[in-house]
């Protein structure tokens, strides 16, 4: 199984736009959207969903007031300050509760139940280039890393069942556990950067995390002409750490227009500079891998 994950560190760098283009270029590939917090790939590709499965991300404690004697043991034991007294009654704060079960175990009166805290969904289906699988985290949920691990497992099974030998993964922003779950076991990681000081700072953090998983790291500079000096600094930095810059995309309003027309830039404007650069980038990765 060949895998390419697209991450950035900085939000809004262009991960989904570039992922969509890679999918337009690639054959026999499973599209995986791991940005479960703000899933966007399905908005471009409009897959026909043929499977929807629920994923329970965790539990929340709930105090049964009919059994509660207000002894306060739960509040004393909770390490997350998630139990408060409201109007004389002990109440669990959903936001702070981590669902660790401890209060339910220590309550002498069995007054605490653990209930499913979030209904998240994993969808799979078909779109114009093949199969797609993506997740949507229920607002306010945590542990997106765990859900992404589940999503990746389901994805691998879907790929196996359909004789698919390549996975292209749209990642979430940041560098936390959601990103780590996205890039675990991925041999090719593309880091999309924008030429701003924030973008460079975040790109460095993303590369640092990615290097723990693979040495095949590629950088794409998006909107490079918005600051050519910073773009040049990115290239110098990447050279210094032996990371290849495989494309420099110019700022082009067609990237947005393509999205509005539910297309990748490759389909919408195949001859523009961005499309040429993306094709070049994609070929760099597959040539490096003999996919």
């Amino acid at each position, binding site marked *: 199984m060949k895998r390419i994950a697209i991450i950035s*560190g*900085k*939000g*809004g*760098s262009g991960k*989904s736009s570039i992922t969509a283009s890679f999918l337009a270029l690639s054959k026999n590939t499973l599209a995986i959207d791991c940005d479960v*917090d*703000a899933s*966007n790939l399905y*908005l*471009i590709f409009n897959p026909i969903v043929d499977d929807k499965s629920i994923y329970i991300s965790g*539990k929340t404690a709930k105090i049964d007031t009919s059994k509660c004697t207000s002894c306060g043991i739960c509040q004393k*034991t909770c*390490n*997350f300050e998630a139990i408060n007294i409201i109007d004389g009654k002990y109440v669990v704060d959903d*936001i702070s509760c*981590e*669902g*660790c*079960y*401890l209060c339910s*175990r*220590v309550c002498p009166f069995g007054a605490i139940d653990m209930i499913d805290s979030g209904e998240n969904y994993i969808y799979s289906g078909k779109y114009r280039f093949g199969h797609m699988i993506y997740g949507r*985290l229920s*607002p*306010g*949920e*945590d542990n*997106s*890393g765990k859900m992404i691990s589940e999503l990746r497992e389901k994805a691998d099974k879907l790929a196996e069942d359909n004789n698919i030998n390549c996975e292209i993964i749209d990642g*979430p*922003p*940041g*560098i*936390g*556990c959601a990103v780590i779950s996205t890039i675990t076991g991925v041999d090719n990681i593309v880091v999309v950067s*924008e*030429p*701003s*000081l*924030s*973008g460079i*700072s*975040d790109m460095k*953090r993303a590369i*640092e*995390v990615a290097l723990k998983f693979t040495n095949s790291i590629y950088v794409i500079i998006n*909107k490079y002409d*918005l*600051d050519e000096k*910073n773009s040049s600094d990115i290239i110098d930095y990447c050279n210094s750490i032996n990371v290849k810059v495989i494309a420099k995309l110019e*700022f082009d*309003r067609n990237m*947005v227009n393509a*999205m*509005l027309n*539910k297309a990748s830039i490759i389909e919408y404007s195949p001859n523009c500079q961005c499309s040429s650069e993306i094709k070049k980038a994609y070929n760099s990765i597959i040539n490096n891998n003999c996919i």
Partner: protein
Amino acid sequence: MKIAIASGKGGTGKTFVATNLFTYLQRLGINVILADCDTEVPNSLIFIKAKEKEAHKVMDYRPIINSDICKFCGKCADYCSYNAIFYVPSLKKISLIPELCHGCKACSVACEYGAITDSELEIGVVRSYSDKKDSTECNIFEGRMQPRELTGVPTIKSTIKYATIPEADYHLFDSPPGTACPFIQTVTRADFILLVTEPTPFGLSDLKQSIETLKKLNKPYGVIINRADLGNDELLSYLKTDNIDLICSIPFSRQIASSYAKGKLEIDENPESSKYFKEIYEYLENQRLKIEL
């Protein structure tokens, strides 16, 4: 007033708004605090020249399991909801898997033999800064989580705790993107949320998710459209139909992109842009009565 600047979609301009609004309010003579709660990739300090005054470590509980005292009863492993205790009684092996530990202390509570002692792990840091030349009073706080950690939530909580200065008139919380726990932790202590978005299908979809969450939390909000001319009308229609306040609309400009890229404040590079932040400030002041109730 505590104002969170948030967005479902990343890269819409939260930090752009937070840092420029912060500076605009300061120049009006307002006592304002900026807290950067985007603990995975905090960026506000790129835009504001400030001196670091203090660093506070954010510590999380971690157990130490002493296998010499351990009786291999397995109760700690039963109590652990995260499979963080590696336990093989036949081999007399027991140890913590730190990457899975959530610091809930359940194992410690479970152990009847005193085999588990308390320890701490640094999971993040909150740095306090002052941008005033002759002052030790900190007005900018940055939370930064350790990259390998499970969640930035404890660091966000800590950042807001340090940043909450009673004498300040305004607190601005620069939020992480998304609608998951880190976003919730940031907005939950705010009185009003400024949602920064872009008029694209991605922006609109993520905005709707943010609003759904804020409604559940019963938090008031208003929308700022950034790069307002790069997209379509769907967003505007949605705001009109759902009666959502459009506070301010900022068009895309290479000038703004360029200032941002260089780590400069737009209101310094282009003083005319103050008008956007004036608009936001006036809106917030108009909402003050409603918000502070």
